[in-house]
């Protein structure tokens, strides 16, 4: 009962934060809203007992991405420009997509249903065999690094590529401001 109340409160706060982020014009405030949104998502993951995911969300969503967005605001300025078109068409697209997604969830097994396919297939195998085969207490780590080692290698390659992309686009050399010693680049 208590868990349901907590879930409803967090989901309501998530919706309020998202709406506030859309409505606000000050990009600094919007960034803070995103940070709050990530923090609420972290609490949600803790309530769902997904501590490793909550940890990642807290470190990446609340910490690093807030700092990176602030760095971007330092480059582009603090005010959002007024949209030049009316937001009717995007709104319709978003509503239809959202309705389709909600319709899709109707077919999904109930939350915490032990008969759900996800709890019948590989999940029990990992949970039962991990102590003997891998021998470390944290099953999340053993799945991530050993059973699903290929996936994690792929994820790391994605992050590596992202880093290379930022290096290629922005570079790390110090830029002179236009006017100082002639020219920006």
């Amino acid at each position, binding site marked *: 009962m208590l868990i349901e109340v907590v879930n409803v409160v967090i989901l309501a706060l998530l919706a309020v934060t998202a709406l506030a982020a859309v409505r606000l014009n000050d990009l600094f405030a919007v960034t803070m809203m995103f940070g709050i949104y990530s923090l609420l998502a972290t609490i949600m993951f803790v309530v769902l007992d997904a*501590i*490793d995911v*909550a*940890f*990642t969300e807290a*470190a*990446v969503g609340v*910490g*690093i991405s807030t*700092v*990176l967005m602030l*760095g*971007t605001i*330092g*480059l582009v300025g603090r005010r959002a420009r007024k949209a030049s078109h009316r937001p009717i068409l995007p709104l319709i697209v978003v509503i239809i997509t959202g309705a389709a997604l909600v319709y899709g969830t109707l077919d999904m097994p109930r939350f915490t249903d032990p008969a759900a396919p996800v709890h019948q297939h590989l999940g029990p195998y990992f949970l039962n065999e991990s102590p*003997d*085969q*891998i*021998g*470390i*207490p*944290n099953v*999340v*780590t*053993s799945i*991530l*690094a*050993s059973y699903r*080692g*290929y996936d*994690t*290698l792929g994820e*790391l*390659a994605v*992050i*590596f590529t*992202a*880093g*290379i992309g*930022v*290096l290629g*686009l*922005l*570079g*790390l*050399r*110090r*830029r002179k*401001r236009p006017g100082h010693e002639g020219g920006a680049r």
Partner: protein
Amino acid sequence: MNDNPVLRIVAKIIIPMILLFALYVQFHGDYGPGGGFQAGVIFAAGFILYGLVFGTEALRSAVPPHILRIFIALGLVLYAGVGVTTLLMEADFLAYNALSQDPVAGQHLGIFLVELGVGITIGAVMITVFLGFAGRNDP
């Protein structure tokens, strides 16, 4: 923010703790929540805090960009290198059992190494991205 003494002193006290906590998360990931991804981000957060408080120029002399570039690749090479090592030991790619006589000890060693690779690359990429964005409009 350079002239705020409270911020500077608090940052100086807290940054070593952040880095130590990152190492704990990195090497304790087998036993509790955490692992390479989280540890890399937290480790980078310590350096980013340093860059925020003392300026990106100070951060750049603490971690020179050419070192960062090497570390970005080093983590991925370490991860893939574990896979190539198991291949050379006539097992499947990333089959850690081959790394040691005892399969479980092999798994421990393999997971330790790949998590370390993940942590190194993620930490270096995060600092790089921060420097790329925040270092652009230095006076």
